[in-house]
């Protein structure tokens, strides 16, 4: 199914994110210490790092799901105190509500005219005609697309993705990459993608940050042309090697 045809571009723009001197511990475990990171509006940032390195913790701080022990997390120049209405998250699991149909899941917030916007968002992610299915009949990739549509209906200015494609097969994953890149290019929201997969980071991001032992071990620009080819670009391979060395 072609995802490209259904897409209608609409730019919502992004908001800048800034973390300064952020500390976060769980008991005796110091996950982030004196952590600084500035993400300009509209940037596509990928965060890679070992398991348990604090990537999800970082994302939860930005989302306002958890608070920092000290330091500041700012979105659009304002301190994050609770959930920010223009920040949307995609989790590793799709987290669809099993007893709501696909369209009701996408329009979970039931905003004005939600059915129409939900239908359009589903078309954006290539799921036209599946509006009235139950989530349990969808494949893993389709579920993540519903979750993506749900995140997109509210026209977020920041999209946080915590390994959303980790459980998908390689082909579906590439399909999701193309989809995400296309929507991001059109809308220009600030994107933070957390991933284990260095190739995924290089294929999608403007900039890759390696998180190691609660600090940034590497911070590089990925200045490759878009739309990107998934394979065989020697510059991409070189970048992947540099990132892997830092992880």
């Amino acid at each position, binding site marked *: 199914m072609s995802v490209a045809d259904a897409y209608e571009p609409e730019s919502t723009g992004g908001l800048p994110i800034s973390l300064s001197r952020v500390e976060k511990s769980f008991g005796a475990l110091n996950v982030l210490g004196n952590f600084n990171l500035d993400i300009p509006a509209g940037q596509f940032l990928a965060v890679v790092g070992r398991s348990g390195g604090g990537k999800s913790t970082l994302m939860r701080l930005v*989302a306002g*799901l958890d608070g920092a022990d000290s330091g500041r997390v700012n979105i659009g120049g304002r301190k994050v105190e609770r*959930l920010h*209405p223009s920040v*949307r*998250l995609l*989790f590793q*699991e799709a*987290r669809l*509500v*099993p*007893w*709501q*149909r696909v369209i009701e899941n996408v329009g*979970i*917030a*039931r905003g004005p005219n939600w059915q129409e916007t939900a239908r359009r968002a589903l078309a954006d992610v290539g799921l036209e005609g599946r509006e009235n*299915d*139950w*989530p*349990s*009949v*969808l*494949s893993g990739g389709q579920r993540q697309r519903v979750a993506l549509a*749900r995140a997109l209906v*509210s026209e977020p200015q920041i999209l946080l993705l915590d390994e959303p494609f980790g459980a998908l097969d390689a082909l579906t994953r590439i399909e999701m990459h193309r989809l995400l890149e296309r929507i991001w290019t059109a809308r220009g929201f600030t994107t933070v993608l957390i991933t284990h997969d260095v190739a995924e980071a290089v294929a999608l991001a403007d900039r890759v940050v390696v998180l190691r032992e609660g600090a940034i071990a590497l911070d590089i620009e990925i200045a490759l042309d878009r739309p990107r080819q998934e394979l065989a670009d020697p510059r991409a391979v070189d970048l992947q090697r540099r990132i892997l060395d830092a992880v």
Partner: protein
Amino acid sequence: MAEASVAGGYAAGEGRKLNLKGLASVLAPWALPITLLVLWEIASQSGFVNARLMPAPTKIATTFWRLLLDGSLFFHTLASTQRAVIGLVIGGGLGFIAGVLTGLWKPAETLLDSTLQMVRNIPHLALIPLVILWFGIDETAKIFLVSIGVFFPIYINTFYGVRTIDPQLVEMASVYGLDRKALIQRIILPGALPSILVGLRYALGFMWLTLIVAETISATSGIGYMTMNAREFLQTDVVLLGIIVYALLGKLADVATRAIEKRVLVWHPAYQVKSGSAK
């Protein structure tokens, strides 16, 4: 489908065999009860068993017809059903409210749950003498007992259902800005529903059980009264008929809950008809 086309020329014969097999599997569950009925009929007709203690099925059938025509069967069944339904609505409603409240709100749990767990251990039928002292033998007594009988299964399963909602879904809902009312309506209650329905199934069992006992002890109407009254006049056929009516009412309640489950849990993979539409 693939096998059918491979079978080719044998298709017709296979089909008939399958049909016979299908018919046999539909009839099989009835074979034993029917055989027993026939044996029972023969035994009491031939005087092998005392027809006074164990009247023949045909005798029960005539009794059924007689009580149906004089309206008393309907009258007693209605009286019992009324008590059952009123008790279920009161006890089940309170159990549901208490379950949701304690499930959602920590102070309510601290206040109520340990007390309720303690009271739960008293078999509610043990309260019958007390209930007769309190309410006499009028309707309130029976409805009170039924209410208590259905309260606990509904309370416990509602509480459990609310408590075991996937916290990841709740987190997702808060990220998407659902307020408390929407969260309860769209996430928590539907999520607790499978468990609540399990509670309802148990409650219906308790409901009839309580009613049988309560009506045999103190009543002037209802199936229980009808059978106890018949016992005094040694009308064993009426007693047996009463038992059969109870069984049918119980079965009816079970069928009704299954139908409700099938309807409201359509989203649940266990209730989905496998269709070819899913890719």
